[in-house]
């Protein structure tokens, strides 16, 4: 392969490193109305009165909207394929506010100053209601987060607003209770992961304006332009033909922007006033009123025989979706379906869950999407089981892990057609020096060094749901245009997809110009999430390019007056083998634009019945201060099987970035509420993400399998890479201290006080 597998520079790299104005706010018109939101100070309250008349008199104020002004039908902000599994439980503004931060009024004005003044002058009177702030007590609580009659669930996910249930389900294979009863060793523990924040550097932001046709144009920092179009159509009650959604460069997403967090407010303002408007979320709003990870508490019951053969897993997940149900019914599924299949040795498994509403910030999609929580629980439990069995945890995993060719009953019965998990684990253990370092060494200076390990998996799309598409056309100079609606949010998918196209069309990657995502011009794509872009959109690109090649060849055959089967084509020159006559791609391109009836343009869509899991192993070495509990990451070895690595640089940086996020989540990224339901970690001062002094040394290698259904053998990498740090670090801490920590983050305080 010429292009696939090469560490090619990202197509937008130079603009990004030289600070060119390519992001949403850089491109906003200067005369945009400034849109800001008045937010609820209460966790659960009903608006008794809201007075905006004096605020409206502030010079420069264009409009102030309250619950009385907005449409009354409910929708979801989740960026999911219709019919969305997430319940329709939102209004643009609701009289019933359900968490501290829930919007109460939309204010639009000429500048920030007048909007700030008006915000202070709005008088809202609330009837404060008791709030559900402990997700353990949410199910069947007498306080209902969504008592309203017009709440509805479009899909049968077990949702019931009269029980504070966003979803519930149970699935199993085999008789788990019977198998567990026959096991020599049983381990049952409960693990807790908080609502960690994506913390992309660019906060949520959207710019809206009307075009010459009176259509609503929405430029937004979004991973899901087509879903945003549907959400706006739902929210505003207008036709999709009246809406265009497009994204410029995105300053990071990590799933946060798979929910339409900011779009509906300026869209409503522009639709009502006809004037351009923009909303820029503050960091505080981004930290307190957005779409973080679902808090989950997971109980794992493992059974093994005395030889260390793991026979059964019983898992129960309680997930906290917060005030609204975005991604609630789906994230929870991954906590079991993308952890349990790591073990191919099982005779039986059961996975059940409840997803509950509470009066806390609504959760959403964050890299890993439930698998992160499930894998923290299961991999921690397996490490504890190894200790119980007096077995090396690497050996225990080698004995039980899923192998290539195995059917995975907990993974919708799919077969692991490509799986190098065994090689990943062995290599990670070798890189970290497992044999010499496990479990720990006392350094004699009050410090102890220890190692920990974990495995992970994810998917490569939502099988039989996600759609990826690409339009590829030939220009008259032999270069190509490729249009996609997958969203490059910094990950480099524009470049990766261009590499796949270049490989298919046998041309340099520089000959492929990529544009998107834009609902007016890009072919339909469900968007960049669920690790689907390389696998799904990449396959669509491949198919489109193959078809375009055929069209190019048939055009060449016409020009050379021969049959297409007599043609040799190398991506640049087509040759009639018989006559020896040739025609260049450029000539073909030129000919396609004169007296031609066959467009040299192809659009292909792709959807997959399977979602081949990438696999990985992560091993960490830490140094722990026995007195203060301080943990230093010394070395992190990550070995990933993402199938064929399309761009090793970008795959490596994906991995390193996610490891850092995982390290933060494991050790200090904290989520703390007051007893009134106010979130305290509301800034980068109070929600501490790792700086470059905190991450230690990160080492990444690849052990590639070849996925037969993927483009050039590729699977996914975007999400899986966040899943190992939490369980591996928890393991290392346990190996250093002898104490098990089953709740994240594992702060130095917990370690020191736990050890005392």
């Amino acid at each position, binding site marked *: 392969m010429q292009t696939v597998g090469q560490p090619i520079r990202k197509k937008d790299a130079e603009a990004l490193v030289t600070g060119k104005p390519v992001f949403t706010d850089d491109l906003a018109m200067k005369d945009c109305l400034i849109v800001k939101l008045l937010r609820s100070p209460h966790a659960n309250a009903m608006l008794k009165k809201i007075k905006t008349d004096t605020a409206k008199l502030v010079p420069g104020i264009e409009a102030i909207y309250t619950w009385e002004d907005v449409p009354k039908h409910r929708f979801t902000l989740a960026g999911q394929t219709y019919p969305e599994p997430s319940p329709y439980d939102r209004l643009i503004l609701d009289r019933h506010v359900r968490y501290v931060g829930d919007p109460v009024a939309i204010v639009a004005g000429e500048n920030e100053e007048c909007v700030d003044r008006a915000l202070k002058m709005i008088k809202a009177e609330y009837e404060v209601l008791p709030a559900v702030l402990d997700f353990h007590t949410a199910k069947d609580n007498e306080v209902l987060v969504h008592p309203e009659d017009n709440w509805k669930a479009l899909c049968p996910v077990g949702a019931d607003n009269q029980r504070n249930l966003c979803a519930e389900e149970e699935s199993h294979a085999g008789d788990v209770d019977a198998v567990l009863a026959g096991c020599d060793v049983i381990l049952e523990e409960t693990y807790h992961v908080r609502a960690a924040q994506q913390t992309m550097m660019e906060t949520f932001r959207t710019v809206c304006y009307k075009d010459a046709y009176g259509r609503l144009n929405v430029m937004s920092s979004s991973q899901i332009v087509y879903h945003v179009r549907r959400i706006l159509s739902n929210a505003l009650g207008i036709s999709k033909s009246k809406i265009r959604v497009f994204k410029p460069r995105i300053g990071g997403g990590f799933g946060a922007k798979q929910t339409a967090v900011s779009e509906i407010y300026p869209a409503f303002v522009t639709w009502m006033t006809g004037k351009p408007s923009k909303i820029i979320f503050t960091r505080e709003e981004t930290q307190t009123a957005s779409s973080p990870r679902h808090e989950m508490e997971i109980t794992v019951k493992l059974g093994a025989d005395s030889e260390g053969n793991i026979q059964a897993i019983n898992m129960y997940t309680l997930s906290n979706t917060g005030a609204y149900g975005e991604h609630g019914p789906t994230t929870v599924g991954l906590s079991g379906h993308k952890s349990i299949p790591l073990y191919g040795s099982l005779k039986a498994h059961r996975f059940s869950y409840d997803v509950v509403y509470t009066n806390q910030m609504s959760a959403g999609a964050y890299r890993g999407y439930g698998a992160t929580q499930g894998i923290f629980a299961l991999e921690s439990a397996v490490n504890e089981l190894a200790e119980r069995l007096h077995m090396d945890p690497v050996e225990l995993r080698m004995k039980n892990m899923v192998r290539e060719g195995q059917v995975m009953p907990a993974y919708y019965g799919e077969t692991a057609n490509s799986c190098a998990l065994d090689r990943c684990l062995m290599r990670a253990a070798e890189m970290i020096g497992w044999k010499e370092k496990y479990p720990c060494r006392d350094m004699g200076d009050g410090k102890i060094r220890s190692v920990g390990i974990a495995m992970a998996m994810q998917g490569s799309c939502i099988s039989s749901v996600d759609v990826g598409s690409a339009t590829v056309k030939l220009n008259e100079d032999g270069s190509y245009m490729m249009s996609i609606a997958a969203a490059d949010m910094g990950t480099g998918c524009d470049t990766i997809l261009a590499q796949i196209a270049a490989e298919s069309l046998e041309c340099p990657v520089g000959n492929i110009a990529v544009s998107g995502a834009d609902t007016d011009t890009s072919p339909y794509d469900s968007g960049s999430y669920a690790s689907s872009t390389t696998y799904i959109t990449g396959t669509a690109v491949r198919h489109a390019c193959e078809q375009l090649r055929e069209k190019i060849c048939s055009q060449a055959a016409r020009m050379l007056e021969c049959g297409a089967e007599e043609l040799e084509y190398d991506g640049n020159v087509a040759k009639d083998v018989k006559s020896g006559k040739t025609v260049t791609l450029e000539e073909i391109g030129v000919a396609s634009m004169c007296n031609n009836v066959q467009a040299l343009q192809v659009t292909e869509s792709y959807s997959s019945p399977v979602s081949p899991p990438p696999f990985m192993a992560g091993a960490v070495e830490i140094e722990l201060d026995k007195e203060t509990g301080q943990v230093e990451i010394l070395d992190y070895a990550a070995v990933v099987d993402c199938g064929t690595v399309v761009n090793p640089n970008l795959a490596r940086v994906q991995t390193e970035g996610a490891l850092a996020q995982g390290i933060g989540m494991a050790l200090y990224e904290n989520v703390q509420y007051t007893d009134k339901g106010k979130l305290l970690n509301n800034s980068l001062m109070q929600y501490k993400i790792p700086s470059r002094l905190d991450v230690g040394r990160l080492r990444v290698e690849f052990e590639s399998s070849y996925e037969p259904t993927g483009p050039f053998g590729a699977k996914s990498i975007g999400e899986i890479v966040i899943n190992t740090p939490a369980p591996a670090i928890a393991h290392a801490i346990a190996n250093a201290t002898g104490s098990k920590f089953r709740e994240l983050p594992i702060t*130095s*305080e917990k370690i020191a*006080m736990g050890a*005392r």
Partner: protein
Amino acid sequence: MLKIKQYIKAESLAQAYELNQKRNNRIIGGMLWLKMSNAQVQTAIDLSGLGLDRIEETEEECRIGCMVTLRELEMNQSLERLSGGIVRESVKNIVGVQFRNLATVGGSLFGRFGFSDVLTCFLAMDTYVELYQGGIIPLEEFAERKRDNDILVKVIVKKTPGKYVYLSHRNTKTDFPVLTAAVSCVYKNGGQEPCKQRNHKSADFECKDKQKMGYDIKVVVGARPAKAICLRVSEEWSDKLENRVCQTAEIEKLARELAEQVQTGTNMRAGAAYRSHLAEVLIKRGLLKIYGDIQGIGGDRHAD
């Protein structure tokens, strides 16, 4: 959002002082805290035209203008020598270079913030503040005072020969501290070396004498999370440290005794019990380090 109606670059301290007597007027230091507030400021008073951005070194002391930035403190060689490196050590974890290029020593100390690394560090040294109205008073006294409308003009650090240690515990490297601790050990008479030799057996130390001079050993604990407090090691203990074979266990005992005097509280970063535990650990480490270094006292001055 912060609102400022008027901005005045003061032409004299007298003018700045007079302006500062009005309730809604504010002196702006590094702006880092003020910027985050919702204050409605009538007049912002800028001292940056008054030459207070310099560090002057004399035979006896370093005089640090209130507008000197934390980055300048960090890079200043006089302070590095005088403090045995703890000034640099105390500020290097504060957010980042760009932040420390703005934050001022005056702003850091005037605020008497609980979390302040800077306050903890300077309290450990022989430090005074020069107030426009209040004259020169010890920093320790200033730290106890309520906020008023005076102006902190300079910070004066005496070149007292001694040994200093600065320690902090943080949840992440550039976060606010969970706890800070500084220990200083100086001669009562500012005199000469007391210990000519030291035997070093594992973690136990032994001072064999010589001529008794007497130390002042001071322990400062900050970010409790309340404002830093100063503790004095009793003469009895100081004597022990100077004169006798001192076992690690004894120093641990002293650390425990001192830590018991530190009132701690709970905030987002940690609970009171952990802070009390950390206080004991950091004080112990500070004392052990000082004890290990004790023979070198006075050396710095000669090294100058």
